[in-house]
Structure formats: structure tokens, C-alpha cells
């Protein structure tokens, strides 16, 4: 039997915790996958006197250097920050737009200038500045603001902010930085920002929304125009700690791609937010190149242009971190050419190259193709590749990395 004080306590905790908002941290320490030592070092029974100061100095150095990695990656204007699940490849200037109605994504162009392979782990040890970077100063409207290959018309009274801790992530607010009215999420970023219309992250991915049985619910799905381009609109409902809240999402999933979120649909600001959204302009010409896809790799063939993978596209259904369902009603298959610079993929359970291993490792392309050949009789005992849902990350229409869903 519930005591009255319990409900009052719950309500007070919700209110108190709700005072901590999604304002992004001024990263005093923002972890990137800094490789940990491969083997555990033996710890002496008693620490020498010089060890604690040294350890403190090392932690301080890491705190200063790691955000620098973010900054170094963020400040390179023509480079999207890499992370798990995205190649970090330099995006070439787009060619004239091919026919966007084509459903078969045989690449129309090479990823000229691509300098990175699809090896997403570990991150390159980019040099960082000696001091922790700060977020750029907020910019107040009225102003036309250029960022991440877009321009945005920020009206009077509104403020725009980019965040170093989360490269490319930006938000526009009216009253308080704690209440972002419109958020911009480019591909790459922190690694889980896959610009896919049926991925409700990062808004839905909050811990207090994860320990629940109720999944995020898709209330509406349609195609609308944003900034003169076609965008997939989704209205989501999430249920966190018994509190239902809706948020809106617009995804332009073809290069130049971006995802917009309106986390707090507020009638008072709706008109201005939607005017801003409609006024977004992209520096690069639109293309038909998806930046991400989701589905199953059925087989491959070697062509004069390289290895071409056949993909059965599916719709991802997010159930929380590391938990994906899928719907698969579309019988069509799609073909993607593997980028010649791709040497391997970031592999995790359930294992593209070797049987389930919960430590990340690299799946080399040759081994991956061998597993595809082996079908249901994988020599490592793993499940058939064609039954593993994967995220496909694309650059210039070419496949640059594959990540098992849930990673």
C-alpha cells in the first residue's frame, strides 16, 4: 500500500531533479574513447609518496587535453567530428544533385578527398590546446548565423549557442539556455547522432526514460519541407517516470544532412520556431546521398568499382540504449558500394566478424566478407550476418562503416 508521503516524495524529487536541465556541460572533462591500458598494471601495496601528486597531475592533464580533442575536431570547418558509428571522413563538395527519386543507391560519385578509413576505434590522438576550450559566446538575434554548413535566421529576443562538448550540436532559446527550443544535430557528433528519421535519440536517450517498460511511441510520421528540402517529420511521445512528454523531430537524411528537435512543444513559441526552421539554408547543394541507413546485409558481389553490398532496408524501432527492434515490411533491397578506403568496421556484439564479444574490436573487410560467404555456418559460431540489423554509415553514397544495432 502506498503511503501519501511516497507520492509527495516522488513529486518533489521529480521537481528537484527537473531543475537540472539538458543544458550541455561546460566540459571540464568530456570523455572520448581514450584507450585504456591493455593490461592491468600491478598496483603496489603501498603507494610511493610521489604517486598521488603524479596521478593528480595526470588527471588534470587529461581534463585539459581531452576537451581539446573535441575543439580541434570541431574547429576544422570542413570536417565532421568522427565517433563510433561514423567514419569521420572528410565530406567532399557535393556534385550536382542526382535524381532524388531513385531508390537504388548505387553510388553516383566517388568520395573524392576521403582521407579516413572506416576504422572508428580508437579515435586518432588529435593534439589539443593547452587549455580547456570554452563554448563560443552565445549569439543574440536578430542575426543571420552560419554554422555547420547552415545559415539560420535568429529573430530578436532569441539566442543561439553552439556547444564544444558536443561538436556541431547547437540550440536556440528564447527565455533560458536551460530550455532549448530548437536543437540541431548534425551527423557524427558524439557518435550516436545517427541522422535517421526513426531514431529518436538523443532526446529520448535519458536515463530516467530508460528504466521503463513503455517504449517511445511514434505519434505521427510524415514528410514535410524544411528550408526548401524534404524532411521526415516525427512526433514522439516518451514516458519517463510516469510523465508523458512529446517532442518533435525533423530529419533531413540526405547530404547535407541534419536532425532538428523541438523538445518542448510550446504553443507560445511554435510560430517563431517553425519560421526559423523553414528559413534554414544549406551552403552545399542537396544530393540524394543518404548519410545513414538501417537494415540487413544479405550478400555482396565484386564489381569493377569494388565490393557492392546488397541491403534489405528495415525500420529501426528504439527501445532504449542498446535495445533495438525493427519492422521490416519493405521487400526492396538496395545496393551500396563499399568505399575503397574502408579497411574494417567497428564491431561489437552480436559480432560481424567473430562470435559475440562485448569488447569492441575491428572487423576487417575480408573477414566480414568471409562471414557473409559462410552464411548460416559461420566458422566462428556466430549468427548469420544477414540476420544482424546494422547501421550503415555513408559518405558520398558509399558505405564507409557498418555498426551492429545496439552498439
Amino acid at each position: 500500500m502506498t503511503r501519501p508521503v511516497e507520492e509527495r516524495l516522488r513529486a518533489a524529487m521529480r521537481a528537484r531533479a527537473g531543475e537540472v536541465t539538458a543544458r550541455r556541460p561546460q566540459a571540464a572533462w568530456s570523455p572520448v574513447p581514450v584507450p585504456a591500458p591493455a593490461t592491468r598494471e600491478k598496483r603496489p601495496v603501498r603507494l610511493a609518496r610521489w604517486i598521488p601528486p603524479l596521478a593528480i597531475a595526470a588527471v588534470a592533464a587529461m581534463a585539459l587535453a581531452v576537451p581539446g580533442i573535441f575543439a580541434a575536431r570541431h574547429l576544422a570547418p570542413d570536417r565532421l567530428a568522427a565517433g563510433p558509428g561514423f567514419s569521420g571522413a572528410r565530406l567532399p563538395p557535393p556534385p550536382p544533385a542526382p535524381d532524388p527519386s531513385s531508390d537504388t543507391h548505387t553510388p553516383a560519385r566517388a568520395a573524392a578527398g576521403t582521407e579516413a578509413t572506416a576504422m572508428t576505434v580508437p579515435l586518432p590522438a588529435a593534439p589539443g590546446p593547452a587549455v580547456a576550450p570554452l563554448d563560443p559566446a552565445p549569439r543574440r538575434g536578430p542575426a543571420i548565423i552560419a554554422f555547420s554548413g547552415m545559415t539560420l535566421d535568429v529573430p530578436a529576443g532569441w539566442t543561439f549557442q553552439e556547444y564544444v562538448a558536443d561538436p556541431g550540436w547547437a540550440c536556440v532559446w528564447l527565455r533560458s539556455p536551460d530550455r532549448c527550443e530548437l536543437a540541431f544535430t548534425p551527423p557524427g557528433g558524439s557518435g550516436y547522432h545517427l541522422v535517421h528519421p526513426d531514431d529518436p535519440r538523443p532526446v529520448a536517450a535519458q536515463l530516467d526514460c530508460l528504466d521503463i517498460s513503455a517504449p517511445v511511441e511514434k505519434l505521427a510520421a510524415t514528410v514535410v519541407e524544411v528550408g526548401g528540402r524534404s524532411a521526415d517529420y516525427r512526433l514522439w511521445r516518451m514516458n519517463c517516470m510516469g510523465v508523458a512528454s512529446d517532442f518533435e523531430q525533423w530529419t533531413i537524411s540526405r547530404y547535407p544532412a541534419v536532425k532538428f528537435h523541438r523538445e518542448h512543444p510550446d504553443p507560445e513559441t511554435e510560430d517563431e520556431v517553425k519560421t526559423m526552421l523553414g528559413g534554414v539554408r544549406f551552403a552545399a547543394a542537396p544530393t540524394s546521398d543518404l548519410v545513414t541507413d538501417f537494415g540487413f546485409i544479405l550478400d555482396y558481389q565484386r564489381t569493377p568499382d569494388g565490393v557492392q553490398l546488397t541491403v534489405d532496408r528495415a525500420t529501426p524501432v528504439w527501445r532504449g540504449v542498446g535495445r533495438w527492434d525493427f519492422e521490416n515490411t519493405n521487400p526492396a533491397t538496395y545496393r551500396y558500394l563499399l568505399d575503397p578506403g574502408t579497411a574494417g568496421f567497428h564491431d561489437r556484439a552480436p559480432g560481424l566478424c567473430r562470435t559475440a564479444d562485448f569488447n569492441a574490436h575491428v572487423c576487417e573487410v575480408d573477414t566480414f566478407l568471409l562471414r557473409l560467404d559462410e552464411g548460416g555456418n559461420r566458422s566462428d559460431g556466430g549468427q548469420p550476418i544477414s540476420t544482424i540489423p546494422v547501421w550503415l554509415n555513408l559518405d558520398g553514397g558509399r558505405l564507409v562503416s557498418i555498426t551492429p544495432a545496439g552498439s
Partner: protein
Amino acid sequence: MEAIGLPDQRTSGMPVAVEDAGEASPQPSLAELYQLHRLSLVRLAVLLVDDVASAEDVVQDAFAALHARWRHLRGEAAALRYLRVTVLNTARSALRRRRTARRWLAGQRAAEPVAGHESLTVEQRTMIEALARLAPRQREVLVLRYWLDLSEAQIAETLGISRGSVKSTASRALDVLEKLLEATP
């Protein structure tokens, strides 16, 4: 475009074999964990310490500790359990340090007002202040139970105590809370 026959496993829509189930969950990167869970952990910590800045410090420390153990944790669920326990322990240490500091500062200058609470109702503020007056273990049990909605077994595992202790601690904590609220004008 060509149609290809689909194996049953790909059309069933059943959850794939990557469920976040205990040790079997896949291991995300540290950056992903940070991005996904920092905010929620700060929200947890702010219920254990009394200001947001300390809560943020507690969570930063927890992630720093996680980094040191990264190789030894298998799966996201294990990492989250570790983070949660570290937040609890670090919050307890932070409060202990603060009590020491306040004792030392007593008489030198007036205590600083507790930050935050601006958006709470009077009742909510009273409740949070009463929560802060509980013994650390009582407060932890209530926060885990009513904020994270953990089961008694999960709380027992997190705090390293028996299920019976969880039950009795929670019951006593609610009693104390009620008395504190009654005593508040």
C-alpha cells in the same frame, strides 16, 4: 530495386539479440555513455547532495573513475551500475567533506544559502529539505527507490546491503520524513 525472399528472423520484428540484459549488453563507448547518462546521473546526484555544482562534480568524478576501470567492465548495464554506485559513494564523501568544512568555517562566516530550488513549490522545497536531513543511507535508499524506481533487490545490490535492510531502512526513512514534515510549520 529487386525483391528478395526474407528469412523469418528478419521479418519477425522480435527484439534482436542485443538486449540490454545484465552482463550481456553491448559495450558502448565512454563518450556515448557520457552523452547519454551524464544528465540523468547529475539529476540523481542532486538529490543526494544539495546543489547542482556539487552534483556535477560528483558525476565528473564518477566518469573519471569509470575510465580507470573501463577495461574491466563488460557491457553497458555493468558500466551503469558502476556509475550509479560511484555517484552514491562520491556524494556521500562530498557531504562528509562539506560537513567538515562547515564545522571549520562555523563562526567565521554565515553558512551559504543552498543554491537552486527556485522552481519548486513550498511543499516540494520542504520535502527536499527534509530529505536532506535524513541519514545518508536513508536518503540513498529513498532516492534509489522513488527516483530511480529500483527494486529492493537492485537497491540491496547497489548499496551492498541485504534486502531486509533496504526494507527496514526505507520504512524508517519514511517515518522520519513524515515526522520532519509534520514538524515543519
